[in-house]
């Protein structure tokens, strides 16, 4: 049971220090930067779709895509490299960038496997969207944050909700050539918010006037939500994608829980 005296206040309330004009500013950190496996391209990458995997189910599913190619990584100087394996692993604290070809179109996938501090998300989002990578469309997959959600969260239900940029919202629903992503997913209710890196990325999309969708799924982990995310991706986002996951890998990722990456460093 929550201790109302000592537990953190809900995010809409402040500690005194949060409001203090004279609180010391955060330590200045070096900017995040991208490293690509091929020499730095002269032009930015322009994928038809840029997918950000932030949630456990999406990280699991996209990690097991057999046809993706590692093309780069985002380095956050404050995240140590210790414990990172030679081959990409779900337990690494990394933010790898992959490319995949689907029906002749380039899709870039960014697997964010570490927590980005709130005050760093603005810089990270600016690095990933609009500078070196200029996508036609963006999809962000995150988990619903119960602390920011004002609706009911039944523990035994699985669902996903979405937020869209203006450019995405303007698209027709039934145009076979170009229509909204995740048509079957309902809208996030008014009064609740999403913060963190997912919010920074979607905000960046809105400001850059890109088509962008943020989908948050509930619960954070488990077989049912992993199945839901997989189904949404295969049906609405990556139709026709050849998917061959080894049966023992499939069992592993369907049963996967929350990745506690801190214990691996």
């Amino acid at each position, binding site marked *: 049971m929550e201790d109302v005296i000592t537990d953190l206040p809900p995010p*809409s309330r402040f500690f005194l220090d949060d*409001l203090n004009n004279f609180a010391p500013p*955060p330590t200045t950190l070096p900017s995040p930067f991208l490293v690509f496996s091929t020499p730095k391209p002269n032009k930015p990458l322009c994928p038809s779709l840029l997918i950000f995997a932030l949630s456990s189910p999406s990280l699991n599913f996209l990690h097991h895509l057999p046809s993706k190619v590692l093309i780069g990584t985002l380095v956050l100087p404050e995240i140590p490299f210790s414990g990172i394996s030679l081959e990409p692993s779900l337990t690494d604290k990394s933010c790898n960038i992959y490319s995949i070809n689907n029906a002749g179109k380039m899709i870039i996938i960014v697997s964010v496997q570490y927590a980005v501090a709130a005050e760093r998300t603005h810089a990270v989002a600016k690095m990933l969207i609009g500078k070196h990578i200029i996508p036609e469309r963006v999809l962000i997959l995150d988990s619903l944050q119960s602390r920011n959600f004002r609706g009911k969260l039944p523990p035994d239900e699985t669902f996903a909700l979405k*937020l869209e940029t203006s450019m995405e919202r303007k698209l027709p629903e039934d145009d076979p050539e170009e229509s909204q992503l995740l048509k079957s997913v309902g*809208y996030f209710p*008014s009064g609740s*918010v999403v913060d963190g890196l997912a919010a920074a990325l979607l*905000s960046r999309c*809105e400001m850059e006037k890109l088509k962008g969708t943020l989908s948050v799924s509930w619960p954070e982990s488990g077989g049912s939500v992993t199945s839901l995310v997989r189904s949404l991706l295969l049906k609405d986002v990556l139709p026709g994608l050849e998917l061959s996951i080894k049966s023992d890998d499939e069992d592993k990722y369907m049963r996967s829980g929350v990745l506690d990456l801190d214990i691996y460093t």
Partner: protein
Amino acid sequence: MEFISEDGKTLDQQCSTLVLPALSIGNVGQLGVDLLISSTRAQRIGYLDDPNVLPCVGNDAYTPSLKPQLALSLEAYDSSSNSLTFVQQRSPVVKGMMLEYAKNLADFAAANGKKHVVVLSSLDFGRWQTIDMSSGLQIYYLSSANMDGTDDDCERLGWKRLQEYNPAQRRWKYLDDLAEGKMVQEDTSTFEDDMQDEDYLPSLPFAAMFSCFKAKGLKVTCLLCYCSEGDNMPDSFQLAEAASKLVGLRDTDIQGNEGGKWTIPFSWQSVYGPPADMSIF
């Protein structure tokens, strides 16, 4: 801070008054601005991109819609018929960057033709020095109109100047110097250690905004009410009412719903979370 306009929209340079919240106990300033935006039918003109404000996104805070529009953490609205611009802030400022944020806001206001800035905020009831039970729901103010913080318009409206304001007090002086970009030698690390009662008000966000807007030569009026954490909607009505009087809104300029004077934003339906689970009974 960069202003990004929505397609086909520009900031109305004729909107010479800017109304915005300063973060505070109970989020009263933000709730007040919500009421003003929804009730004056102000139109969103664009967003403010500032690295000092933490990002957040949500769906349309004001009206229900089948295809709701995205809401970001810092948005600008114009009510051209009332010559008002609103800036709404939905998320916190990075700790330690409040002054930087206030400076950016002041630059934005000055660059976009604002002449008068109205800052809505609240103060902690627990810090109320002089309890005056006869004053009821008293509005307090701080104005740049005079050196001592007084303003004839505010006095005429029956508001009380913030008595504790003293521009010569060390922290107010320090804020003013920082806002004006002066080199200051005082070691701020001592501020944390020996904070006294008189240091409380200048440490609050509204004070940073007051100093920064003043430093830009803009007229600034801070409207404040005392409150506690809890259901702060009544406080926000009081503050919005005060702001509407100060900026000269007539009753016909404000549209209400549900039989009231104000239009309650759609997002307020869930501001205190979902209703209790009745199945337990």
